[in-house]
């Protein structure tokens, strides 16, 4: 698999470490009501879809950036990659 790194171009997936579902970017608020249950879900439960999956890959043997890669789990086709930082900031409504 080749991952289209937004800064470095196509890179071999072997250079990356895989963490899993990109929803891990949305860490629950530890001080909020019901935080224990929210963290239980956050740490352990996954959608695990067959089809398009947004997932976190760390470019360990490269520029050490975190990417959000969009990939089809039924074919392994990679549909796109963004810097996780951009995704996280966009979700917070801020700019880089």
């Amino acid at each position, binding site marked *: *698999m080749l991952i289209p790194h937004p800064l470095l171009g196509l890179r071999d*997936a*072997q250079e990356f470490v*895989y*963490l*899993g*579902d990109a929803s891990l970017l949305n860490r629950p608020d530890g001080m909020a009501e019901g935080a224990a*249950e929210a963290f*239980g*879900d956050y*740490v*352990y*439960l*996954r*959608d*695990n*879809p*067959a089809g398009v*999956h947004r*997932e976190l890959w760390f470019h360990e043997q490269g520029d050490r950036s975190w990417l959000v890669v969009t*990939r089809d*789990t*039924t*074919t*392994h086709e990679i549909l796109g990659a963004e810097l996780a930082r951009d995704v996280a900031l966009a979700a917070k409504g801020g700019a880089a």
Partner: protein
Amino acid sequence: MKGVLMRFSGFRVFKEALSGHKGWAPLWRNPDPQPEYDYVIVGGGGHGLATAYYLATTFRKSRIALLERGWLGQGNIGRNTTIIRSNYLLPGNEPFYEFSMKLWEGMEQAFNFNAMVSQRGILNLIHTDGQRDAYRRRGNAMLLAGADAELLDVAQVREMAPFLNFDNARFPIKGGLMQRRAGTARHDGVAWGYARGADLAGVDLIQNCEVTGFRIEEGRVRGVETSRGSIGAQKVGVAVAGNSSRVMALAGMRLPIESHALQAFVSEGLKPTIPGVITFGAGHFYVSQSDKGGLVFGGDIEGYNSYAQRGNLPTVEDVAEGGMALMPMIGRARLLRSWGGLMDMSMDGSPIIDKTPIEGLMLNAGWCYGGFKATPASGYCFAHLLATDTPHPTARALRLDRFARGYVIDEKGVGATPNLH
């Protein structure tokens, strides 16, 4: 309606050989689904078939259907590397796997089918002092649970497998943990044996029947929707391995599971060389030799979510490198085939056999890359849960809510990272 009894014996094989093999009949019926059953099992892999078998025989239940999307045994039960063993460490796991080992030892007589259970032993290689300590501890845990274990020194390993590369600079071999009662079994034979046994006991094995939804009323399961129509049920047991998340999503549940691909490989047939199963955990490689002579080997899972039932080339290279490092003689053998299966990797690397928040709906999942050895106990314990509403004593820890409650069974101690278990 029950299946037609056709018993297997040496005499029968002899008689058929002399009469042109005209007397063999199909091993099971191919019934159409009834509108309503007491028990519906979803998934015709090893675990679903074993569950149906024990439910009908040991627990004496009737009106049971097993629904399989494709044909019986099309999934992981027909794709694994057939290793059976009970060499786990933690108290939540080891008694369960030892119960399974004991069932393997009597299963062929029980269901009158040759599953080629062969207790040829498993040897886990040791390379460092730290690993020896860890394996000594594991061996003791096994003995405490009634299993067998032996710590071998390097001379004993050398005697057993002289072809290993003992003086590898990075991973010199310092000994091994041996379980002699472990070994291999014919994976398809296990599925067929349980299928035939279940059919004989009156279970309807329904193929080409995909479950597409659950009928749930007031928090209670009433049946399933399938590609062959609605089927009512008092209780539904789901055992669909790599597809667990997809199927349980139909009931509105999210699971502590990721699906990953695992590959396996087989070489051309060679003269007998490998005495049992040998694992090189440090190098991501394990191997045994089939009765036909092929070297059957594999390594780690691919490491990213996948429903593709195939892996990629980097893993092929990694496994081949592990093999060459451990036993350089393998380099001359030609690879015949490789294939992949779908692993239901749980968040702690251990399985789940439990009720769900939906009454009557029960789950058997999270087998990772090691569910073949569990097939008999998984079926027995799941049948126990379905029949009695209480967990079997050896499966008490395998609960679905153990993650949120903090009672994970994490053999490797790597946390909620399915691709590292």
